[in-house]
């Protein structure tokens, strides 16, 4: 039954620098279990950070919540900001077979969860693998390899859609015209700003889950009245059905990290959010059902 080929972990030595950082955060704790967790979390983040930096991904550990002394007094978070991509949560485990648990506060706003094994001497870390779907715990056999994480991050880093260029006919590969995604009835329901120049494109989003695949269409409609601004309509339509299943969430996150969310309730043909943004701003759109999430980044 075990069809998994053995994943080759990536090993990172942990020495003075790693432990110096771990100790720095550890010393500020007052609760023994939290202190221990903070020490191990820091070692796990250190390993991932070193690995990513060898591979020329730009990280910003100091901008992460895990580096903020106040945040880690309260929350068990081990996030690492990967520039232009997002946050990776780096969780330590002490054996290959251990179930990696992800605390509630670490399940939001992450593009992936990396599991790092630490040995008893704490001199060696092994990056075992990752998952892109948030969950309460990650069984070891559901981990994807570190190589896959490299591909995943590379894809994310490149995938920044520039919406203002849509208005001059430059649309990124993978964004289709609406007729390819929606039924004629659904086409009637898409955004219409009633302006001369308005462009709509969509993408099929697969929310692969354990219960079965859900596909929805993310439709972006872009228009402009003032030169310095874009009006953007974001919609989520079901594919192959009339109604969206209940509990589909559309979350638009602006540059400051503020979320605007809308959810489907069961008899919705679509859900939507309209935003107005200045050219040059960036935002992201997350579509989620339960714990399964997909995120897309946009530059206005």
């Amino acid at each position, binding site marked *: 039954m075990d069809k998994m080929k053995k994943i080759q972990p*990536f090993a990172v*030595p942990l020495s*003075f620098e790693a432990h110096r950082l771990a100790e720095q955060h550890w010393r500020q704790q007052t609760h023994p279990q939290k202190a*221990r967790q903070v020490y191990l979390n820091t070692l796990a983040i250190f390993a991932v950070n070193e690995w990513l930096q060898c591979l*020329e991904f730009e990280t910003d550990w100091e901008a992460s919540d895990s580096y903020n002394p106040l945040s880690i007094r*309260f929350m068990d978070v081990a996030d690492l900001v990967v520039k232009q991509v997002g946050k990776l949560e780096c969780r330590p485990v002490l054996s290959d077979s251990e179930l990696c648990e992800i605390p509630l506060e670490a399940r939001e706003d992450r593009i992936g969860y990396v599991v790092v094994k630490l040995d008893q001497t704490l*001199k060696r870390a092994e990056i075992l693998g990752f998952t892109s779907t948030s969950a309460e715990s990650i069984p070891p056999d559901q981990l994807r390899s570190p190589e896959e994480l*490299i591909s995943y991050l590379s894809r994310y880093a490149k995938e920044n859609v520039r919406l203002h260029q849509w208005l001059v006919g430059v649309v990124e590969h993978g964004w289709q015209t609406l007729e390819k995604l929606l039924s004629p009835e659904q086409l009637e329901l898409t955004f219409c700003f009633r302006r001369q120049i308005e462009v709509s494109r969509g993408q099929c989003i697969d929310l692969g889950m354990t219960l079965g695949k859900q596909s929805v269409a993310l439709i972006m409609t872009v228009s402009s009245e003032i030169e310095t601004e874009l009006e953007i309509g974001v919609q989520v339509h079901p594919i192959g059905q009339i109604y969206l299943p209940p509990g589909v969430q559309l979350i638009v996150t602006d540059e400051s990290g503020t979320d605007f969310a809308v959810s489907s309730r069961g008899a919705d043909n679509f859900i939507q959010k309209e935003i107005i943004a200045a050219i040059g701003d960036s935002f992201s759109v997350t579509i989620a059902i339960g714990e399964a999430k997909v995120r897309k980044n946009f530059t206005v």
Partner: protein
Amino acid sequence: MEDELLRQLAQEAKRYPRGSKERNLALHKLINMIWTSSRLGHPKRGVCPEAIYEDIRNEAVLRVMHEIARKIEGYDPLYPVMQWVNGLLGFRFLDVWQEYENRGIVGAPRKGSSQDPVRVRSLDELEMDWSEAEERSETDQLRQFIEEDPEKLLIRHIQGRPEATLKVLFLAMLDGLSWEEISKNFNPPIAKNTVYYFVDRNLRRLQPYLQKHLCE
């Protein structure tokens, strides 16, 4: 043959542009193979105390890993990869040793003063060091500040649940209670998610206020 495989990986990495997926994948395999190779050298034995040799070497290996990635274009396929790597390792080893020796940072484990040199702790030592540190009984300034709440900002509570104030919740979190435990501390229990979102939102908002615990 390991040599041949390493050479191929190095050449593969050289072939692709910096930051490309293909290069990253090749570097990843190459570095992993080098670091776990039995032929990775043990340079300069005898230069530093044996007790910290492994740690100095580990620090040096880490630096060499970065160096290989940075300088892969400079790798000459005429020479075996391990020869190149071990050469680098010898130099980095001395660099690390000198740095840490100068900073007075390495040494045999010592009992707890706050001027402790950096120690590479094992899990067991972590437990031990913590219990020794506890005897120092520093007052928890953050905790005191929350209890005092000078500007009375922490009286804010979860909607409909006046007993679930930020003060109560923050203190519970500092005490290491799980979300489950916090949730059940209330009668009737408050959903974990409700507690979490409330705390998270307010924690972000009140960062500047809570930072004031650092000022006397």
